[in-house]
């Protein structure tokens, strides 16, 4: 990208947006090369989805047809939307920049007129958005056709839901950056962190069981982490489990988590950069 002379602030904002817009599109395009993998992912999503249907429907029925506000139709929506988001919300803890940070190659990235953290997260979000096409939407369609599900009547739920999904994807990318990638400035090996993230995030994001069914203390614990913002909240909004005012509260919580996680990530990135400069790369 050619460096343009600094103009009025409005122009500068536009330019920054354009740069990150391109990074987003590049991430999106790159992911399109992995269609075979995406298809495999869809098969896996569907298989797990059907098994979740079996066990969670049985649980709802055992509770007399209604469990913490979930009937089978709402449970079905929860299952298929969360399965669909699995290809996009980063619950695995892998992010490309992690290896570059760990190996010190990131020193080169610091020379570019881009924020390293923002660029890495933007790329991830681009890839995640692509995955909604071969994995996200088909998962929901398959679930809807094969099992059936409840859908909200209020158009606001879809609008807020789309925003919430985007926020959820971004929170997950920013969190992976914070807890798996950034520590690589100081640690030699971050595989353990990645594993730990993978184990904890799925459970607390409500991947296998909605966190609202957890015992109270565990539910509170989950909400004290950014994980429900990644998957549980978007699913709640899209499935219409919460009304518009409830949805706004959840979106506000997501924004708060995003700001917090991103700010901490920025602090670590700056400290890491100084660390690199002192160490000489």
């Amino acid at each position: 990208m050619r460096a343009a002379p600094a103009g009025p602030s409005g122009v500068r904002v536009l330019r920054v947006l354009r740069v990150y817009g391109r990074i987003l599109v590049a991430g999106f395009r790159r992911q399109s090369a992995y269609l075979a993998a995406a298809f495999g992912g869809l098969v896996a999503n569907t298989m797990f989805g059907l098994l979740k249907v079996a066990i969670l429907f049985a649980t709802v029925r055992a509770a007399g047809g209604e469990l913490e506000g979930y009937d089978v139709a709402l449970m079905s929506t929860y299952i298929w939307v969360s399965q669909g988001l699995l290809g996009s919300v980063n619950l695995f803890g892998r992010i490309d920049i992690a290896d570059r940070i760990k190996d010190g190659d990131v020193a080169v990235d610091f020379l570019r007129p881009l924020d390293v953290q923002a660029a890495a997260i933007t790329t991830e979000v681009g890839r995640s958005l692509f995955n909604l096409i071969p994995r996200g939407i088909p998962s929901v369609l398959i679930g809807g056709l094969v099992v059936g599900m409840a859908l909200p009547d209020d158009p606001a739920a879809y609008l807020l839901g789309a925003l919430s999904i985007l926020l959820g994807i971004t929170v997950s990318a920013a969190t992976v950056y914070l807890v798996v990638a950034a520590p690589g400035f100081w640690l030699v090996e971050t595989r353990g962190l990645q594993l730990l993230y993978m184990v904890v995030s799925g459970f607390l994001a409500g991947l296998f069981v909605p966190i609202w069914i957890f015992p109270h203390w565990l539910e509170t614990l989950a909400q004290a982490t950014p994980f429900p913002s990644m998957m549980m909240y978007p699913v709640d909004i899209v499935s219409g489990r919460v009304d518009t005012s409830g949805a706004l509260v959840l979106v506000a919580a997501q924004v708060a988590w995003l700001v917090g996680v991103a700010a901490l990530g920025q602090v670590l990135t700056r400290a890491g950069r100084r660390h690199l400069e002192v160490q000489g790369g």
Partner: protein
Amino acid sequence: MADTVPPTGLRDRLRPYRAVLASRARSQTSYRASFTLDLASSLLIGVVELAEIWVLFHSVTEIGGLDFAQVLLVFGLADLCFSLADMSFGHCDNLPTYLRAGTLDVFYLRPQPLLLQLVTSDISLRRLSRALVGATALTVGLVVNDIAWSPAHVLMVIVAVISGYATFAGMFVWAGGAQFFLIEGAETTNAFVYGGRYAATQPASVWNRPLWAVFGFFFPMAFTGFLPALWLLGIEPPYGLPDGVGWCAPIAAAWTWAWALLSWRLGVRHYQGGGG
């Protein structure tokens, strides 16, 4: 692979595999701190998997006709078997990496059968801690449930663990053979290997008929935990299956291995035929 090893004793024939495995084990345990961390995260995986089931029983007392103690038995059997198979066969998942790096070509240059070389090329000792979770669940399940102990019951536990281990091991080999064709699509086989583990730890009475076809019989996951557990507990199996169907676990294992070896053979032929 039709060839036979030169006529030497069993001890000599096992020597190559022992040498590789022993060195793998040594190298994994040589860094105390990192091995301890690996054990801990592996333990956590097992605990979280158990917690996924436990939280369901927080709100209801029975799912699919089983209470939590009874499901603990199903989970314990299936998860112990899976963890042990994952420890010794889990690296078959890495076949696409091996293919890209040419590791498999190196196996061709050694005088042992390819599949045996692949299986004995690694062992993940850190998964021991996860097996510990399964073993604990199994023990608790055996103790707290009302089991009419007899020699047959003891035998069933042994048969179930061995067969379940073999079944999951066969699943890994089956998936490995399929990787020769899929390369990019490892997630497709994951759907059945790891989806199979998830299925195996459930009370299978909640499944509908299509799920029974896939995870009950074709990939016989119900035979690794659920059906033997039902026999131990004296509970009638669903869908009018005969009472003693849990005793068919060894047949399920043999069936899985038949598919596994077929898949491996076709995969190797495909590779030698130059598809890879």
